[in-house]
């Protein structure tokens, strides 16, 4: 008898749990935040997650959206495309409405078919490889620029300001790094002599061999398509093999960590990144709120914050959590971001052309006028 009653109790408890579960599903809207949160590039993923978390917290303070609380789920893709796919599958199973992510281009590209098939809106705050939005997927967007724009800006700057005769091009073999390096190369080819083109291994601590080989070709500047841990080691070792030419590189290097890894060797490096938004009042309030909670915002925190706000505003406007409806609304609308107004073209790219050149000077990034 005792046994039987405990069985009833267990069944009852299980039933309650199931009811609780479905009830919770209806009560909560889930937003995923995906990026590298462990490993080399962990700072970027954590910056991204904090930006999303801040936006979600602000909406929840105002009572959530559609009368429901919003819950953020973090997914760590370790900057690895295979992990990114498993995170995408996890998000699909967890019934998320939309995702802010991923950070790395190869992660975003590999995860995007899963989001598209499951009708989940995914807005990347940082993946700049053009292919991401050229796959014909309706639910995939980005709030940053693309590498063809970025490579073009870098090439223009190099040809107009540095006026080199010979350049070397180096990349980290990733979708982002090699893609960006190729766009740069394409933009300068025929106008400047490209005397060296090769890739490096990302986990390798020693780049002296390849740098010595570059130095041998006597270029006047070198371009690097890659991310800050490698860029920091490269400029540092470049000085040691006696290379005194500037490095030009992309948004993956725009982070103070680059300067702390490279130290004085970082001085004189040119980096393409978005315009300095700190003059905007909305950016100021974002920075204050972010700092109060997490410390100094990372370069992509504000992009992640804007992406999350676009998603939540669309849910509110359409009154729906259906991915296709949201995607249609996002592609047609214009959204007030902390970083200025955002609207999208037919592919899902932002319509503003956002790149300017920054210079590392006295241990800080300074916008070139």
């Amino acid at each position, binding site marked *: 008898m005792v046994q039987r009653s405990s069985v009833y109790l267990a069944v009852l408890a299980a039933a309650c749990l199931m009811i609780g579960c479905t009830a919770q599903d209806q009560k909560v809207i889930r937003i995923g935040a995906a990026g590298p949160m462990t*490993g080399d590039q962990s700072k970027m993923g954590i910056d991204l997650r904090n930006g999303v978390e801040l936006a979600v917290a602000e909406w929840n303070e105002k009572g959530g959206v559609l009368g429901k609380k919003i819950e953020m789920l973090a997914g760590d893709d370790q900057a690895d495309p295979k992990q990114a796919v498993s995170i995408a599958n996890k998000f699909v199973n967890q019934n998320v409405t939309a995702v802010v992510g991923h950070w790395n281009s190869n992660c975003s590209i590999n995860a995007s078919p899963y989001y598209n098939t499951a009708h989940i809106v995914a807005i990347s705050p940082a993946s700049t490889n053009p292919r991401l939005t050229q796959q014909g997927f309706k639910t995939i967007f980005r709030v940053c620029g693309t590498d063809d724009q970025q490579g073009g800006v870098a090439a223009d700057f190099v040809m107009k300001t540095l006026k080199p005769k010979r350049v070397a091009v180096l990349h980290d073999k990733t979708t982002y790094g090699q893609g960006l390096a190729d766009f740069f190369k394409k933009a300068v080819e025929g106008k400047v002599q490209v005397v060296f083109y090769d890739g490096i291994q990302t986990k390798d601590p*020693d780049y002296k061999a390849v740098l010595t*080989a570059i130095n041998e070709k006597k270029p006047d500047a070198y371009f690097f398509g890659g991310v800050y841990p490698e860029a920091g080691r490269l400029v540092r070792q470049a000085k040691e093999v006696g290379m005194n030419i500037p490095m030009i590189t992309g948004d993956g290097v725009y982070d103070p960590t680059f300067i702390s890894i490279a130290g004085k060797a970082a001085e004189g490096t040119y980096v393409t990144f978005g315009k300095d938004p700190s003059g905007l009042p909305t950016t100021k309030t974002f920075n204050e709120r972010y700092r109060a909670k997490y410390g100094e915002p990372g370069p992509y925190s504000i992009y992640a914050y804007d992406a999350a706000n676009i998603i939540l505003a669309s849910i509110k406007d359409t009154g729906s959590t259906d991915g296709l409806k949201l995607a249609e609304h996002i592609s047609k609308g214009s959204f007030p971001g902390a970083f200025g107004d955002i609207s999208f073209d037919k592919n899902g790219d932002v319509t503003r052309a956002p790149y300017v050149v920054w210079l590392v000077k006295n241990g800080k990034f300074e916008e070139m006028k």
Partner: protein
Amino acid sequence: MFIQQLINGLALGSVYALIALGYTMVYGILQLINFAHGEVYMLGAYLGIIVLGILTSLGLTTSHLPLSLFVTVAVSMAFCAAYGAAIERVAYRPLRHAAKLSPLISAVGMSIVLQNVVMLAQGKEYKNLPPLLPSEGIAVGGANASSVQIIILGTSLLMMVGLQLFITRTRLGKAMRATSQDMTMAGLVGININRVISVTFMIGSGLAAVAGVMVTLYYGVVHFFMGYTAGLKAFTAAVLGGIGSIPGAMLGGFALGLIENFGASYISSVYKDAFAFLVLIITLLLRPSGLLGQKAVDKV
């Protein structure tokens, strides 16, 4: 460029050689591949950056640079030697008479534990140190041997000569050689096997610590995962030279450093790692016991 790459290769190779010695010495005695050895090297590098950081904040690295480098190496060596002996006591000694695979699995486990301990204690980020030594050094035939490269080469050669003398000229060194030839017999003639094995781990770990500090000076960045790749490369160097052979590990280390540098500069740096392993495969096909390894005779 040839001379510059030769210098780069020798500096990198001497780091590999120092780590490879630890693998080969342990293998020579226990026939165990100590997969946690790369992590000891990583610990050495972390200690290097911590001690140098403290000395820099006290202003000692500017006023007494050679002395502070010596202190850093000594502290790191002592710490890692203790770590090496502790790893052997905890992870390998209880399994000494177990099946051959058990200590190997234990080694892999130890490696993962150490990586994660350092990750939790020191963080996932790169730790970096500003350059302490000038990048100018000695001009050699149109190339520049930087002061760090000279220090790395000098220290490594000193360590290797010291090790060779220790092994061939001292009582303990003789005991080590005896133990590696036949552990049971050495025990029967009164050699304290446990002590010899502990000392072997301590020396190997101490050398890895030196390599760690040198790399900290050379690249200025440390990371909790750095021991994995370096350990794999050094293990390759040990196998290339003939695992179990001390001169072989030195030769293998230098050979690997040079192959990587010349391959990366004259062919393509995309395949830098591939060159090392390609040469390893070819060497093992032609000489299965490595460059200086002895033909394995099965003990009957």
